[in-house]
């Protein structure tokens, strides 16, 4: 979605239609998946944020699988959120 696309008027119309009809659906689907993933990481890697839930032995065994997502996960968990985040 982010890469520059060369296209004329019809491409722009197509993208606009996607934005109107489906972009929000895609975002919410991603949000739902991310919430589940982040909850899972919190349970398994809560130690990193000072919330020890799982014994460290199991956390360490799972660590290699979680490494690529740790920075994003930490940022999302620690970012200030308010009620308006639920709206858009």
């Amino acid at each position, binding site marked *: *979605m*982010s890469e520059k*696309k060369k296209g004329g008027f019809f*491409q*722009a119309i197509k*993208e*606009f*239609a*996607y*934005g*109107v*009809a*489906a*972009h*929000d*659906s895609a*975002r*919410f*689907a*991603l*949000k*739902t998946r*991310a919430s589940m993933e982040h909850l899972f990481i919190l349970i398994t890697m809560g130690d990193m944020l000072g919330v020890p839930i799982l014994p460290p032995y199991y956390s360490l065994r799972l660590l290699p699988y979680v490494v690529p997502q740790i920075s*994003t996960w930490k*940022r*999302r968990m620690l970012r*200030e*959120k*308010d*009620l*308006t*985040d*639920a*709206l*858009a």
Partner: protein
Amino acid sequence: MNSVYVLILGFIIAILGYRVYAKYIDSKVMKADSKRATPATMYMDGVEFMPTNKNILFGYQFKSIAGAAPIIGPIIAIQWGWLPALIWILGGALFIGWVQDYSSAMIAMRSDGASFGGLSHKLISPRARIILLSFIYFYLLLIAGAFGNVVVSTAIGLKASPMAWLFLTIGGILAGQMIYRWKKDIILTTVVTVLIAMSGIWLGTIAPSNAIVGDALSNSRPLWAIVAFVFCYFAAVLPIWRFALPINYVASYIVFLGLLFGIVGIFVLHPDFTLPAYTDFSIKIGPLWPIMFVTIACGAISGWHSIVSSSGTARQLENELDARPVGGGVMFVEMMLALFALIIAGTLYASPAEYGAAIAKGPGGVFAAGVSKFLGVLGMPADIGRAYGSVMMIVLAITIMQLVIRFMRISTSELLGDISPIFKNAHVGTVVASLLGITVVLTGWWQYLWVLFGGANQLMASLALMLVTAYLMSEGKSYAWAFYPMIFMFITTIAALLFTSYNLLSKVLSGAVTGEALIGNTLMGVVGFFLVIAAIILGIEGFKAFNRYKKLRLAAKPASA
């Protein structure tokens, strides 16, 4: 005056605003830079922070801000005459509307994608954050009430609409199932479900609600209010992909096809305005200033847009230069939507008396009759056109309503969850929000409710502009372009809310209202006063922050020789 001239005038204002004023602010004041990394690129998480193409974001922003309000506002406000409404729509969008939408996105983008709570804490004061968020809760209650009223009055006034609404719901649920569960092709899904929804419009004309449930039930306000909130209940508690989003997806085709062909119909028919250009300064709802300026909210300026711009769009802009087309450009498109509604109301009826009789039943009927007229030019039968217009109105209102109830469910659990764990339950939170909404819908007079909603909405806009002004001052940038619109909106909306709340509560205190109206007047009056008090406290905090920034700037200047 001919309606085509109004559309042409709208195009000229949109081009001037976008190409000249917005471009100047974007390049000279905000100094948008395509090389500066946006939060979407810096903090990309593939979910909320996601660099997105500007055309897609244009569609997303338009879909998020274009609800029923830009249509209903002008239809009601034409009671003062079409000229004041036209001037406010054009002037409001040109000097205030786009400024707010664009700058809300820009300041959130320049503040690492922070939302309004965080921005008010950082730019104004810690107290400002709490007050702003409580303000937003009651503001959303008024949205639920005002839009719920539109749904109820449309369902009663146009008997074909409930069947169309039912089929839209069936089509939407099926779309969710086909896309997410059965993994069907999106084009096939779209064709099947939109056809189902369209067939509901046709079925509604041959099986109207009074033929199915009888005259008494089809005219029952409590019944349709409960139906509307049960619909919102499902939207709030079911997974969003199963109910709310696919219904919105199918509905968007109905709405945009209707609008597109409606505008074509205006050009083909090019009718003259039949209602007077100006009636009187003071009418039944109230005086032209301040009440008309809050009656037409979206279309001229709306606080809702600032929430979408800051919490949604700002985190997806891949380039700073895209903020002008997405934040500002969409506002001008919505201005055209408001002009479309103004033309419908102003050209449809032969006399003010005919219009008065129609508007007394609610704005949905006026809009549906207009859609029917303009689609009729393209060959659509009048009764199907009216059913089409009515379902458009219901769709525009209910899509925002279901989002608002879902949001109120979340905020109820956050605000009251510490008092009792029962409020953390999704069903309890939704029922609390729905009961509050139903009470407002059933007990309030819809025109006052609309004015209160508009007042809260515009007040939200002035608070957003206050944040923008504080940001500009903190950065040492020119701020007059946001400051003066903020002052105008702040004074106007406080006056409108005070006027309406005083009217409502004076009737209660003098004993002029009893029964349902007593509850409605008291509730709406108290909510109105609460919003005014919250806004005044925020205003004081804001001005303290402005003074702080001014002193900082003076202190930073080197002493003259």
